[in-house]
């Protein structure tokens, strides 16, 4: 049974997403390879989510599915927008429009108020823009690994709060990035160097932020809000490699990026785990 969850919830969507992403990246015209990798990652999330729940009547019965759907539609918006947007300002506007549009769709418990979703979208867009700066500058395998680790944060928090159907799709995207890392190591292709790209950065930042927001919205275990916030910004751990003392040293910077994301993800998980264990302890007393 667990094997089926691994197969249909994680393995198949991840391999489809990785194949889709690499195909997109290799097929897209030179110099513009970062339009649809985000769509590949969002497809992984969506396929994994619908392996867990039915889209039938999702607006009323399975409203959490707005999360993967909004990610998929947001990825389409950012991918299509980046095909045409030339200037940095236009690309920034594409990022803002896609993340805010996706956030507005996220009509789930605790986020019913429109302005809250708007702020969430602006926050995710800000995170995506900051993330894109590093992703653009550091397009190599350490970035894939770091981003893969960063998504473990919201995934594990969702699992700790009891929301397995949310944890599995986010975990699948993390696994998908891990597969791309392995392929990158195996074939050593320069064309994979920009695989994450701006669209990938936007989707990863959004999955972390909106995934944490969805988990927080449905959480009944009252995990500390700080754990959700840290999980939401875990991809920004990439910036650890950009510290002045570190940024000029390639290997050290790569390890710092990986450690930065891992530390943020681990901190979020640790806060939640300590909270749950302290609560269990007080109950047993």
């Amino acid at each position, binding site marked *: *049974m*667990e094997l*089926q*969850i691994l197969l249909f919830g994680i393995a198949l969507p991840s391999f489809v997403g990785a194949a889709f992403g690499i195909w997109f990246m290799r097929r897209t015209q030179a110099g513009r390879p970062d339009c649809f990798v985000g769509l590949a990652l969002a497809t992984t999330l969506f396929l994994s989510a619908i392996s*867990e*729940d*039915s889209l039938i*009547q999702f*607006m*009323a*019965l*399975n*409203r*959490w599915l*707005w999360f993967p759907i909004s990610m998929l*539609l*947001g990825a*389409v*918006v*950012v991918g*299509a*927008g980046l*095909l*045409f*947007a*030339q*200037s940095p*300002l*236009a690309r920034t*506007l*594409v990022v803002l*429009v*896609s993340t*805010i*549009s*996706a956030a*507005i*769709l996220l*009509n789930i*418990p*605790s986020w019913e108020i*429109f302005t809250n979703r708007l702020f969430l979208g602006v926050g995710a867009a800000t995170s995506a823009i900051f993330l894109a700066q590093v992703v653009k500058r550091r397009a190599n395998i350490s970035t894939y690994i770091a981003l893969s680790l960063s998504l473990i944060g919201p995934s594990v928090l969702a699992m*700790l*709060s*009891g*929301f*397995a*159907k*949310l944890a599995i799709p986010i975990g699948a995207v993390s696994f998908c990035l891990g597969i791309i890392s392995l392929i990158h190591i195996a074939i050593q292709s320069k064309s994979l160097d920009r695989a994450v790209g701006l669209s990938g950065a936007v989707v990863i930042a959004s999955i972390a932020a909106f995934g944490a927001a969805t988990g927080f*919205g*449905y959480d*009944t*275990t009252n995990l500390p809000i700080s754990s959700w916030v840290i999980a939401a910004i875990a991809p920004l751990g990439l910036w650890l490699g950009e510290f002045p003392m570190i940024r000029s040293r390639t290997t050290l910077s790569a390890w710092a990026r990986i450690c930065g994301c891992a530390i943020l993800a681990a901190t979020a998980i640790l806060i939640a785990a300590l909270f*749950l264990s302290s*609560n*269990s302890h007080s*109950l047993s007393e």
Partner: protein
Amino acid sequence: MFLSLAPTLSIAASLLFISVANTQQTPVAAPTVAPTTAQTTQNKSAADSTVWKIDDTHSMGLFRVQHSGAGMFWGRFDGVTGIITTSGIPTGTLALDVSIDTNSVSSANKDLDGHLRSPDFFSVKEFPTMTFVSTSSKKLPGNMWEVSGNLTMHGVTKLITTNVEMTGQAESPRGKKIGFETVFTIDRSEFGMSYGVEKNAIGNSVRITVALEAGSS
């Protein structure tokens, strides 16, 4: 620049339109329920009918479902409230209007409770109560009634029929008391609660026991 943003803006506008529709979306409305047996009874023989208020301290809901195709997993709900209307006990009609607080679900394991409250199962933030409102009742031999009514759970309403047993009736210094119990089985996937069903991790068929104690008001 604005021309280059046109595709993005047009898709975004579509998403906003969907969003507005989504905001206006309301949970699945329960079908209009015919007048309850309680109301009918009161119209016919108001003098005979007694309205009982469910005592949430001494009432509970229990459920039993198969786990991993092997053992039976039990859980309970404590937040059981509502009204029971009887007419001419022990031969008359019986009407039930019962509400259960889904957040009161308990398995004696904190981690499992969190899982049961999540959208994997009861999604208590979206569906804080489940209800049963009877629409008709038929007296059976002994202390039994066959009661039909609308069970609303996880945003889905289904008509069910179950046998209800009167377990006792007594007078105490605190007033009159009456007790009922019923056991019925549902397929949880029919109520949109299908986590683990296809993978056979958790059974589809759930046996529900509801034990009620009520006092006359």
